[in-house]
């Protein structure tokens, strides 16, 4: 089965206990991918408050997961 890499940052990373993990592509879109990760790690963030990025570019939740890609869930930012 095809896999991709999930990246976690800040409170998501702390909650997941890992900065990244390689997962099988079970979901049909990035939204489904987040739903699975959310269930697995108990993330409290509803998807509506996050953004998603693929290979270092912002993406859309209804994009299909690509094998070998790097998918990041982006909680609200606080730089500056």
């Amino acid at each position, binding site marked *: 089965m095809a896999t991709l890499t999930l990246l976690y940052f800040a*409170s998501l990373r*702390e909650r997941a206990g890992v900065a990244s993990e390689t997962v099988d592509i079970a979901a049909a879109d990035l939204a489904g991918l987040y739903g699975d990760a959310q269930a697995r790690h108990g993330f409290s963030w509803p998807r509506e408050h996050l953004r998603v*990025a693929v290979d270092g570019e*912002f993406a859309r939740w209804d994009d299909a997961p690509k094998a070998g890609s790097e998918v*990041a869930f982006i*909680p609200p*930012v*606080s*730089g500056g």
Partner: protein
Amino acid sequence: MPAFLLSSVPLDIASLRAQVLDPRAGGYASFEGWVRDHHAGRAVDGLDYEAYAALAEREGERILAEATARFDIIATCCAHRVGTLAIGDLAVWVGVSAAHRGAAFDACRYIIDETKRRVPIWKREHYREGDADWLHPMAEEA
């Protein structure tokens, strides 16, 4: 190509500033964000910044390109720290040169506003009481 830089070592203001110097420029506006000793009523001892580096640099350069297209400026540069910072440390630096000061101010403000709003960098505050928290502001920050 305007540069958006992430740095895990202290920012050197003099060399950042030198990047935007230009003989055609009459005005230069800069902004610095410093780690302050309090936030939302709590005493702060220091903080960590974490970035999604690949996307942060790309989104940061997009912001600088937008500012260059939108305002009549000559050069601009932005740098943001990652890692552990103490009170008073420089967290972010923006510099803009322009023929006239209005464009320099407007672009500088645009860049810091958009950077805080869009660039994937996160802050973890260490409170004097001993706990620490990642900040994920939902509304526009104060």
